[in-house]
């Protein structure tokens, strides 16, 4: 009995959920799905969107905040969109998730610069641009890792940061969400 009560509590707990879905690459599809999220009163904190390896298909990854009922509604409402082909929830324990951050930080003296480079190395980042008084580095990882990195760099003076939303894949040999085999209908 105890376990079912715990389950119930887990169900209603507010949390962060990762949803990945494949859409047909057509005009307005982005507006369609984000509009849906807004009008249904859902809360999205991150979005990442890019083409897939197959022509005409785009993959979107949303980070949704809410309880399990909200999550279920988001998934079902997304599935109703004609351009949305497949939707999956990617659970942290069975998927890998990454975010990319480009960070421009002040590095006016040699001590600071050395220290920054050390941090970048520890976080397995790369320096991609250097000027006499600043450098740009790229770091990838989950959101928490990036947050930690930014916190360490804070005292040096962060000039600007560009972060992508989280993107993710399920572990193992299967694809999720899978692009269906039904042929793409040609129209623009």
């Amino acid at each position, binding site marked *: 009995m105890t376990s079912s009560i715990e389950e119930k509590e887990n169900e209603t707990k507010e949390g962060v959920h990762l949803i990945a879905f494949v859409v*047909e690459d057509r005009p307005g599809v982005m507006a369609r799905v984000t*509009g849906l999220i807004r009008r249904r009163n859902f809360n999205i904190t991150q979005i990442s969107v890019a083409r897939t390896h197959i022509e005409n298909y785009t993959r979107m990854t949303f980070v949704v905040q809410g309880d399990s009922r909200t999550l279920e509604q988001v998934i079902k409402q997304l599935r109703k969109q*004609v351009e949305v082909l497949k939707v999956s929830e990617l659970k942290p324990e069975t998927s890998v998730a990454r975010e990319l951050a480009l960070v421009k930080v002040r590095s006016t003296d040699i001590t600071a610069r050395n220290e920054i480079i050390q941090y970048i190395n520890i976080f397995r980042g790369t320096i991609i641009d250097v000027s006499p008084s600043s450098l740009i580095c790229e770091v990838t990882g989950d959101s928490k890792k990036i947050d930690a990195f930014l916190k360490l760099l804070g005292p040096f003076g962060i000039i600007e940061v560009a972060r992508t939303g989280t993107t993710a894949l399920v572990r193992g040999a299967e694809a999720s969400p899978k692009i269906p085999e039904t042929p793409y209908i040609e129209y*623009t």
Partner: protein
Amino acid sequence: MPFIKGSEAIAESFKREGVKHIFGITGGAIMIVYDALLEHEKSGEINNILCRHEQTAAHAAEGYARACGKVGVCMATSGPGATNLVTGIADAWMDSSPIVAFTGQVPTSLIGGDAFQEADIIGITMPIVKTNFQIRRVKDIPTIIKMAFQIARSGRPGPVLVDLPKDIQINEDEVYFLEGELDIPGYTPNIKGHPLQIKRAAEALLRAERPLIISGGGIVHSEASPELVELVEMLGIPVVTTYMSKGTIPENHPYCLGVVGMHGRMCANLNINQADLILAAGMRFDDRITGKLDTFLPTSKIIHIDIDSAEIGKNVEVDYPIVGDAKTVLRQLIEALKTMIAGGSNGEKRTAWQNRVKEMREACDCLDEYEPVTPIKPQYLMKEINSILDDDTVVVTGVGRNQAWAAHYLERMNPRTFICSGGLGTMGFGFPASLGAKVAKPDSWVIDVDGDGSFLMTCQDLATSVVENIPITVVILDDRSLGMVRQWQSLFFEKRYVETDLGNVPDFVKLAEAYGLEGIRIENPSELGPALRKAKNADQTVIIDVVIDRDENILPMVPAGGRTDQPIPCKPWPRRYNK
């Protein structure tokens, strides 16, 4: 297929989709399509119905779809023409009515430049359509129009909009028409219920001692009335309906308790929370049905059948979810039950429950208590209307008290014979939807039971009724006020009547006469019967303006956010019914 003009391809697509009637208004950005339709109109294949406002065109398309089940079509020009359709599209969206709206658009080269009569109708309608398309290549016309109709009518029906830039109508290209249904990758409605869920639901139905069915609009869309009635009679289960599903079971059926919800019948409302098992089919637990959610169905298990999986678990947690088409799933349930019952009958345990609802059902029949007094009681008017309705008469209503009285008292025997704006609650819906219903059912009497406030919102289309020869009967419950709001003010706002008095205009008889129609004003209840008979037999539209007692409230009523089983009653009810 040789090179043809876009407008010709559009007309040809209409023909292939079986479009017979188009409700609309022409304009600069759609006239080319109308031009291509001229030959089809001359040959009698497609009938263009010129409306006087685009909102009317959309409502008429919906009335048409609701009355006959086929996809309704409306058409308007770009900009204001398109935006005027929006209310009608939203209405069709809320009530899952299959319509396809075609809008003209400025040429593709001008889109986004704020051209004359440009409106982003794709962006505007995104939240209120199943999907929408802007055609950008002439050769895409057949595919997109085919998809539009297929999506509008299948699955959970609903509106689809197709935006037609002017150059697409004018330009020529090689165009191929497709046969049969399209395989749309992102659109695969689930029709059949999961066998395991069917089995579990059937077992629950057999176990239940106090089962109750809530029939919803999905029963109408999927034509599932025969299955509904079969299931009801098989197990002896009482049924309540929503406004959308009125008539899905004949309302004189001993197990039909009538409409439930905010203005539902006492026998429906008082029993819903008493049930130990609810079978909700093709309905979405709207707040007008549930009232306060945490006091709704506190003890019953719920079977929820819906073709739209997003409706399941949206408002109410469900014990037996079944995603599928109502007709198919009910048939599956019936077959499963047949095998289970084969061992012997199991009806005895439901007898007490059945007796209770039957007794309350009879206690609910109170129309005879209303006398022909002046000013006329709306209930008495309903009694008079009831006595002249045929089984195939299509009753359409406005929104407000007129709608609630009609839903409460008018007895309907068939689906698609009671049409109102359920989800959006669009005042002004009644009259144009009646026109659409009459076009769909030319041999049936169509009667619009309307309010004066509602009717005045779209009455300019009396012209359409005359010119296009669409005769209907309009009965106005004339209380010279926005009656439903007035009633709320009376009950919950200490009779502070703010902005609900409409003044003593217009003269509806003169209004009718201005269109060359007959108007009859009635203050004496004895004149009702003759006027209704006259209107029913007339070959043109008749307006019957009935002066009603504005202080007569529509009761019972569940105050907004109140408990469904604790309505303000229409009369004192024996205490034993509250348990």
